[in-house]
């Protein structure tokens, strides 16, 4: 008598009555994913589901495979010629490694912000307009609008609105990073991947980017790699702890930091190693 959807609803209603996040949809499904650089395995059997419209943090010691993992999500990891993988990653229900899957489409839907700000050596305006332009948007008025909206979205508009034609290299590091976020927002992705976006920034710029991440999450699903555990605790909904290429624990952030299940997670977050 019940449809599947209703059954599911009842199930959640019964078990986790007021924990909203549990009902949130999954945007990425990573299933038994292994990755090698040449003969060195970097990811072991990674299995996790990344929720939509939430902030998912990836933490773990240096070299544990955080960057490798996040770059797998938009297939940027394939730029390393020696990479081999198996297992599957599906985005919005589709296997991103299946033949015929268009990687350009994936990377249009999934934006990325890198550890070091990497604006193009062009004007601030051109940096933001680049994405829309390569995707065929040519009208000056439309571009103007996109640029303004994206820069506002990245909380940078007020600082740069009078110097849009200046070269982006003249901006401070923190401004450059927000410009890169604006550039990413300009093509309205659904997911934003961030690999240690604040590690090159001072505390004030970091606070701005963190605030920004918080405000972006209602429209975007965000995956953020961070070395900074306070940061993960402050801004994320769920946290994955990686160690030596394995996911040790993937939990609600509050739970993971207050009451970790695994001994190794506890050691890491209390600073006993890493």
């Amino acid at each position, binding site marked *: 008598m019940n449809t599947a959807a209703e059954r599911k609803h009842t199930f959640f209603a019964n078990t986790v009555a007021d924990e909203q996040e549990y009902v949130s949809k999954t945007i990425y499904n990573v299933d038994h994913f292994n990755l090698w650089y040449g003969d060195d395995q970097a990811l072991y059997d990674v299995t996790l589901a990344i929720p939509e419209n939430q902030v998912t943090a990836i933490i773990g010691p240096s070299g544990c495979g955080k960057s490798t993992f996040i770059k797998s999500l*938009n297939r940027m990891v394939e730029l390393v010629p020696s990479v081999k993988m198996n297992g599957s990653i599906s985005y919005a229900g589709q296997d991103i490694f299946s033949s015929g899957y268009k990687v350009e489409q994936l*990377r249009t839907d999934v*934006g990325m912000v890198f550890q070091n700000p990497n604006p*193009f050596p062009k004007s601030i305006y051109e940096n933001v307009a680049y994405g829309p332009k*390569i*995707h065929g948007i040519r009208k000056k008025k439309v571009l103007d609008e996109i640029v303004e909206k994206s820069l506002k979205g990245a909380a940078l508009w007020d600082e740069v609105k009078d110097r849009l034609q200046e070269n982006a*290299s003249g901006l401070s590091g923190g401004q450059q990073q927000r410009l890169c976020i604006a*550039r990413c927002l300009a093509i309205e992705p659904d997911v934003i991947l961030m690999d240690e976006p604040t590690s090159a920034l001072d505390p004030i710029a970091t606070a701005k980017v963190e605030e920004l991440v918080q405000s972006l999450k209602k429209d975007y699903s965000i995956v953020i790699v961070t070395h900074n555990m306070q940061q993960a605790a402050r801004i994320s909904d769920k946290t994955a702890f990686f160690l030596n290429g394995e996911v040790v624990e993937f939990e609600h952030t509050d739970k993971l930091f207050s009451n970790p299940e695994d001994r190794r997670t506890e050691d890491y977050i209390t600073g006993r190693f890493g």
Partner: protein
Amino acid sequence: MEVNVKNMIKQKETNRFFLRFTEKAAPVFFLLCAAISVLTTIGIILTLLVETTAFFSRVSFWEFISGTEWWPFGENPTYGVLPLIAGTMLITAIAMMVALPIGLASAIFLSEFASEQTRKIVKPVLEVLAGIPTIVYGFFALTFVTPVLNTFIQDLPVFNALSPGIVVGVMVIPMVASLSEDALRSVPNSMREAALAMGSTRLEVAMKVVLPAALSGIIASFVLGISRAIGETMIVAVAAGSTPKLTWDVTESIQTMTGYIVQVSLGDASYGSTAYYSIYAVGMTLFIFTFMMNILSQYISRRFKEDY
């Protein structure tokens, strides 16, 4: 045995005298070496100036720069340099139509698309191409390219501008390709990653991000290529003929500035004659051309330098 770094450093102290001497002497030695090339340049410019002045005491400067006929060996010699300049420009223009697109395309291929293995093969081949003596290119133009062109163009004279123009272009390709490739490769990978991560294709990355970012270096390589073509001597001396002509017809026999200098240097004029002095005036003109090209290339690289 334990390594005692402190002691080892101390021991080096005892050699102090010798160290201090080399420390002082080495820069002097380097300075001398550098001075040789500077002095040579000054010497060349002085010679050019002195002999050019001698030339202009016989021929008016105005006739030289505005005359449309260059005929130094007849009864009534005329010294209008424009036909020689036109010859040089004609050759350079043809050469650049060959060298710039092909050189740049090769550079883009090598830097953005070629696998490491391909690059390892193609780069040395390009360098070999750059190392071939230009006289060989000259005979290649005369005995291969001209006959081939002759099958397409009826009545093509044995000496013409088109064939050496193309071959000068071929000769310049490696230089343009290699310098442009350096410029493209110096664009940091983070730019490519940023563009790829936004859904750009590799072609879009190459054309819309890397190429604009390397533009100053690429233009500088073009300008150096042009200046190389302007100064190229053997190919045109062998295959372009020796008929100074103010023409844009590429099938005609012409003469370039360098071609004329070779002709006279080979003994067509007696020492001290006006024709003899004229090669210095032409040489000076040539020098001014290439000098301006080099300045231009430096200006471009500096003015449009991208900071990443």
